[in-house]
């Protein structure tokens, strides 16, 4: 059988013109697939380069000595050193910052998700007077800048003797994170048919048993996404965290902003601290990367 016959019979079968099946076209497509460069790919490459440049610079700096940072412009460390990291891991005033941050972030994640779960279930399953307004009102809590709340929070927490405790920061961040978690979880819960709840009641499940045994596995990815966003906000938030802490619960982001010592700015240590601050976020993103897209698809993130 000759080549043209194949081409025409294929064209008849799938409606692609015979020329597209010619040897030349097939070869061209094969070479394209095998990875020769396409100009279109430049756009994302340039974009990613611009995004990564500051991060690279931070990493670069963290391995340099202060002398090199301030006196020379080098694209990579001339005398790579781990001294900056050693400072952070040995000086309690540095590593306690990380521990403090992690404690109140985890506390906040747990509180936010635990509080948001029943709220989101109510919004997703029940119709009550003003439910839609209340749902929207929750979100408006996020519209005010944190600075607005810094003063009242400081007053309130002082009155209750909570200043400079981890729970104070965790609770304060709930103001922003609970609405977000409710919003995200409601989207995931509404994706589960109500008939599953009813079938469980018909089967005789009590509400708590249904919720934990049947329902939670179905919205596990939603819980992951909600927890991730709580983590993100709480981890990067600086103003409230700094206002409510003095020394015992000082977060790393606050410590990073006051590294001017008698000997001047310690650039290298600051850069190393910055790198270490990025890492937990990167780890968490890695765990929820598959679910985040789903969260966006639900229009809730």
């Amino acid at each position: 059988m000759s080549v043209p016959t194949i081409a025409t019979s294929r064209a008849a079968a799938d409606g692609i013109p015979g020329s597209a099946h010619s040897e030349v076209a097939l070869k061209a497509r094969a070479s394209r697939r095998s990875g020769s460069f396409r100009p279109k790919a430049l756009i994302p490459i340039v974009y990613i380069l611009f995004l990564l440049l500051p991060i690279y610079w931070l990493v670069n700096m963290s391995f340099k000595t202060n002398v090199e940072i301030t006196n020379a412009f080098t694209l990579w460390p001339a005398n790579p050193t781990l001294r900056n990291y050693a400072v952070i891991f040995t000086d309690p005033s540095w590593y306690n910052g990380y521990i403090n941050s992690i404690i109140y972030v985890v506390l906040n994640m747990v509180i936010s998700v635990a509080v948001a779960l029943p709220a989101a279930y109510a919004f997703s399953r029940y119709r009550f007077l003003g439910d839609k307004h209340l749902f929207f009102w929750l979100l408006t809590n996020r519209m005010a800048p944190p600075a607005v709340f810094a003063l009242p929070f400081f007053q309130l927490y002082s009155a209750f003797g909570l200043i400079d405790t981890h729970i104070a920061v965790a609770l304060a961040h709930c103001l922003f994170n609970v609405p977000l978690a409710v919003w995200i979880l409601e989207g995931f819960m509404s994706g589960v048919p109500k008939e599953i709840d009813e079938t469980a009641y018909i089967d005789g499940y009590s509400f708590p048993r249904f919720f934990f045994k049947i329902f939670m596995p179905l919205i596990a990815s939603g819980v992951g996404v909600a927890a991730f966003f709580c983590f993100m906000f709480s981890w990067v938030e600086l103003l409230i965290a700094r206002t409510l802490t003095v020394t015992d619960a000082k977060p790393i982001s606050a410590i990073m902003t006051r590294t001017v010592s008698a000997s001047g700015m310690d650039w290298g240590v600051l850069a190393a601290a910055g790198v270490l601050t990025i890492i937990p976020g990167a780890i968490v993103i890695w765990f929820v990367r598959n679910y985040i897209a789903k969260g966006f698809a639900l229009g809730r993130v």
Partner: protein
Amino acid sequence: MLELKNLVWKVGRDVHIDDVSLRLERGSLNVLLGPTLAGKTSLMRLMAGLDQPTGGQILMDGKDVTGVPVRQRNVAMVYQQFINYPALTVYENIASPLRIQKQPSAEIDAKVRRAAALMKLTPFLDRTPLNLSGGQQQRTALARALVKNADLVLLDEPLANLDYKLREELREELPKIFAATGAIFVYATTEPHEALLLGGNTATLSEGRVTQFGPTPDVYRRPHDLVTARTFSDPPLNVIAVQKRGSRFTGPGALAFDAAPAHAGLADDDYRIAIRPHRLSLGDGESGASFEAVVTLTEVTGSETFVHADFGSDRIIALIHGVRRMAAGDRVRLGFDPSHVLVFAGDGAAVNAPVALAA
């Protein structure tokens, strides 16, 4: 025995269920037949206890269960959508009501395997429902309803989303399987022929009311009123307004025919006659009762032809055997046998269904 007494269910001002009274015997098969939004699902939810009625009473074996939460009633329900617990395996899905009842695990195992065998699910017990085909998912839901050994089994259009072959197969098996349990079996459907195939009793629903309840063939042959007849007819019933003068009916156009013996005694008045589409034939008809209509559309389904036609202001549908092709605008003469006609008074009540007198 499940007894519904003057059940009413309103949401705001919308009346979803309007004064429904029914009495369903143990071991019986009951079909709820009605178009979408007729209230089939609402009525089932009230029977199950998922919703609480606004008025009326529900009695189970003479005991008032109105207001008893669904958890404490022994019911099982299968939805039109395939509802299972996606996180559990098919085995655990079927076992779940038994686990809640805290039955010994050996007993659970035996029951699950028996139900799975009946529903042909044995090879899939270790899979999760979302890895099954639609038919297998629905059979899982049915197996869970079966294994519970409930007093009341509610199936809400369980076969509507299944493909044709599977539907035929399950429709035949389901009544047999559930009849063996002695439960009250309620089956909702929108399809009249499904009701006829299932047999048992049928309650026709329209706009939240039960228009008639009785043995299925009876309801089909002797509808009490026009609404019931319309509900229980697919394709739609042909209704023509006529007058009776002496022994003759006259209608619009040149329609005039001698009344069948069963109708001869009716008083002279205005009536509405209903003719089922398959009772119409091409030509003059054997007893000469016929009318001429203008074809608007013909649909050929294999060996049968649906002829849609305009007769005056009425829409007529005739189901004709064999393949007939007619162009829109053609005039066609449709004949019928006057003894097959259902006659209704002006208010829609049946006056004298012919079969009733023949019986």
